[in-house]
């Protein structure tokens, strides 16, 4: 409470600091309680980080099942394959919130998580492409072009009888 004392000197009698300073390892040096293991949340974070991989495998299998023709089933799968990684990427922070601890190294799990989800996204885009839904061909850009105007005009034919 040395911080508190310092404050008292400026006119306040006392103060209680409720701010949690556990995340600042240098400020305090309280030992973990007996039986508490620091490794467990980290392991869990790793598990969460690797979970998209299972999803990825699952997606891959589903995509293979769906085939390369455009119909309701394959479109649904492809869009879910695109949507899942995107929503996961948006909520990276939330997913790793429970493991937030100053003693747990979260950067690597996060990176793995991101990488796996990006892989899922790539898989989805690849699927989109195999379905022919990406405008990567010249035909996708010219198919709506109207025929060009003609400079000359002609008419005629048989004479009227």
């Amino acid at each position: 409470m040395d911080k508190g004392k310092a404050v008292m000197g400026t006119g306040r009698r006392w103060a209680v600091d409720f701010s949690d300073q556990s995340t600042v390892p240098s400020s305090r040096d309280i030992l973990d309680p007996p039986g508490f293991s620091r490794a467990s949340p980290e392991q869990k974070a790793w598990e969460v980080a690797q979970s998209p991989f299972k999803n990825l495998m699952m997606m891959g299998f589903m995509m293979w099942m769906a085939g390369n023709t455009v119909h309701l089933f394959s479109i649904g799968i492809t869009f879910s394959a695109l949507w899942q990684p995107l929503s996961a990427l948006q909520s990276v922070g939330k997913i790793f919130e429970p493991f937030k601890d100053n003693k747990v190294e979260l950067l690597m799990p996060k990176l793995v998580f991101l990488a796996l989800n990006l892989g899922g996204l790539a898989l989805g885009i690849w699927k989109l492409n195999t379905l022919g839904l990406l405008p990567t061909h010249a035909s996708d850009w010219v198919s709506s072009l109207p025929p060009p105007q003609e400079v000359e005009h002609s008419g005629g034919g048989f004479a009227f009888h």
Partner: protein
Amino acid sequence: MAIRFYLILVVFLLSAIVSFSLYEDQVGLMDWHQRYIGKVKHAVFHTQKTGRKRVIVSTEENVVASLDLRHGEIFWRHVLGTNDAIDGVDIALGKYVITLSSEGSLLRAWNLPDGQMVWETSLHSAQHSKSLLSVPINLKVDKDYPILVFGGGYLHAVSPIDGEVLWKKDFTAEGFEVQRVLQPLESSIIYVLGFLHSSEAVVYQIDSKSGDVVAEKSMAFPGGFSGEISSVSNDKVVVLDSTRSILVAISFVDGGISFQKTHISDLVEDSGKAEILSPLLSNMLAVKVNKRTIFVRVGGEGKLELVDSLSDETAMSDSLPVADDQVAFASVHHEGSKIHLMVKLVDDLDTVLLRESIQMDQHRGRVHKVFINNYIKTDRSNGFRALIVMEDHSLLLLQQGAIVWSREEGLASVTDVTTAELPVEKDGVSVAQVEHTLVDWLKGHVLKLKGSLLLASPEDVVAIQEMRMKSSGRSKLTRDHNGFRKLFIALTRAGKLFALHTGDGSIVWSVLLNSPACARPSGISLYQWQVPHHHAMDENPSVLVVGRCGSDSSAPGVLSFVDVYTGKEISSSDIGHSVVQVMPLPFTDSTEQRLHLIADTNGHVHLYPKTSEALSIFQREFQNVYWYNVEADNGIIRGQGMKSTCSDETADEYCFTTRELWTVVFPSESEKIISTLTRKPNEVVHTQAKVSTDQDVLYKYVSRNLLFVATVSPKGAGEIGSVTPEESALVVYLIDTITGRILHRLSHQGCQGPVHAVFSENWVVYHYFNLRAHKYEVTVVEIYDQSRAENKNVWKLVLGKHNLTAPISSYSRPEMFTKSQSYFFPQSVKTIAVTSTAKGITSKQLLIGTIGDQILALDKRFVDPRRTLNPSQAEKEEGIIPLTDSLPIIPQSYITHALKVEGLRGIVTAPAKLESTTHVFAYGVDLFYTRLAPSKTYDSLTDDFSYALLLITIVALVAAIYITWVLSEKKELSEKWR
């Protein structure tokens, strides 16, 4: 496994051939069919017996028909072939209709009540000659008089019972022309009168039993005959001499031939050239002289005397025996909007049996023909009914001073068709009368719902059908959202313009064309003159009718402008030059009047409308307007460009001269032009690219300046089978009409015309006969642009760095390649058309008018040069059909279903506003209209979509949601209290 099944199902669905058949209860919902017969030539009444009164008519469209005299409906009708013109029609034995056709070489008998053919006899014919049919008036049925037919140089006696030729007599001697075959009543002698070298009258007396010549008399007439003849009685005829100023009465019964000459100038003063009119009047003849019609009585010794004279606008009927050995005839003339019908006795022209004046509600022109018939009224006096044929080809029955019925027979000879929009619905136009009230609307939908849930009773089904037939103001006279209600403007051979409503085929208006220069110009063709949509919205749209005064190609032309909304002729002008070709230009002026160029016989072109604004628009594009002529007789196609304004003194500033730029000469010994075709100028093409299965792009060569030309060897220009395969070849060309460059040439050895073709977007489909295979063939040629094929860089396309939409010129040498494929086609074809839609996105169907006068819709996918024997999976998915040697005819894809468009001559398609839908109008002797959706109606709900079911479902869902919400609330509350 399930996935596999699913995949197979999808593939099957994608590649399934869609057939566009109708259900039985859908007939008449979108289509209508009208039956006509054409302009009546002969009419024979059949009213003696009790029972149905009818009139047998033969027409200029080669139709023989039996009409109900009460209502004018067709009892039965037969359309003979186009080359089978009917020469005579009569009733024999009181039960057979006898027709003589094909220049006297075909005699047929039809059963009078039902029109079934009883017998047909083909008669020997050796030369072209008059054809005469003489059916004896059979008062005694037991006596079997033969039918006498003269045609092709032979006189035949044919038994009316079975059509057997009893005897024939040869009259094919050199220079001998048979003029009349007469058989006096109750006589066994037939008189055959003819002229030898037009200067000697010869009379043969022939025994009607055996056909032997009993006697032959001849006598020379120094003045010579002109060929016009009128038989006034059984032993006398009257002819004109070669100067057409002397009437010669020839009597030939006993002793010999005697001539009695009478100068027409003795009968009427100031006479010009005379003309004998056709009506058969006993002991009298009608002569047209000096714009008057004079009646000349023939006395016992061939003495002629003038008895009456009428204006030449009078039509006369043949004479008709009425009671007490009296003979009457009818004459009809016009006066303002009234027509006057008079029936007089031939012997006593002062006795008028009937005098009627009838008000005509619309303008039908002059009376052309009259046929009369008498009946006995209840007070035992004679009543008369008259069948009249008007100048617009319409047929009217007059009786007791009124028009009992009328038939618009002009529509049997439609020559040109265009479409027009109906007026936009305005606030003042009362819609409420047509639209139902909400209760009616709901009732109707509940009925429909019942029908769709199979709950409807038979009465309900009838009510539903009735409701659908007259549903939602199909025949309203305003524009609708989907563009289903439109007008088809049809120009007929008689020079009358009709506007037909697409909803029910009713005639919205009709107008007989007038001209200041001549009484009745003949219409040639029809163009859209003014179609206001962006600017000038307050102007009414109008059509341009190009006509000419007279049948000669150098006759002066006439332009008529007709308001489409009202059907009134806005103006009609004599343009002072002839009309050879008309070219609508792709420019409009500020009031959206389309610019037109009209070429005359002197090689000059004239610009219309004649305004300075049009002139300035035209001057801007002066160098870019080209012209081409097809001279089929010489085998030459000439291309011309605009040169300068005309230098003639009479010409105005809207007249231009042309200079010849190129000619394509076909070798006359090996090729003869039989058909040319261009794309429709108003066709809309959605895209220039065609994407193949492997994402490759082919660029279509879409040009309006392409001319398809088909030529055959001169030997093969005749009928099919008249040449051996080695002698005949068919060559088709695609020619650029700006530069004269032949872009493509394809030769079919051993093939023959006639060629029927259709040209749309970048493809031509044509139909011809293959002599080697003895089958008809259809070939498709698709044209692609090679020079644009380099545009394959995606990034350039994304950034728009390409020249694909830049205007192109025919002078930039096009590199093009074609793909083609041929198929057998099992039917002979009369005409081919193609569907057209508003944006050109919907896939196309070929509309093939078959020889059976039906219209077959064939998907363009069947005539696709990319078809192969074993298409790959991807190609199948794209809809490419495996190649077969012949095109299939799927009976359900006849769009005319059970109907026939008799005498089919043309098919016109027009887009509706809804992209999926196209209007189809087919014309011949009959008219047929339907709406087609080549790729099904993907952009709208079908007519039988049940809105009530949708509404009920929504209501039920909302109710269910509310109920479950209430229940769950209750449950939650009770849970909390526990």
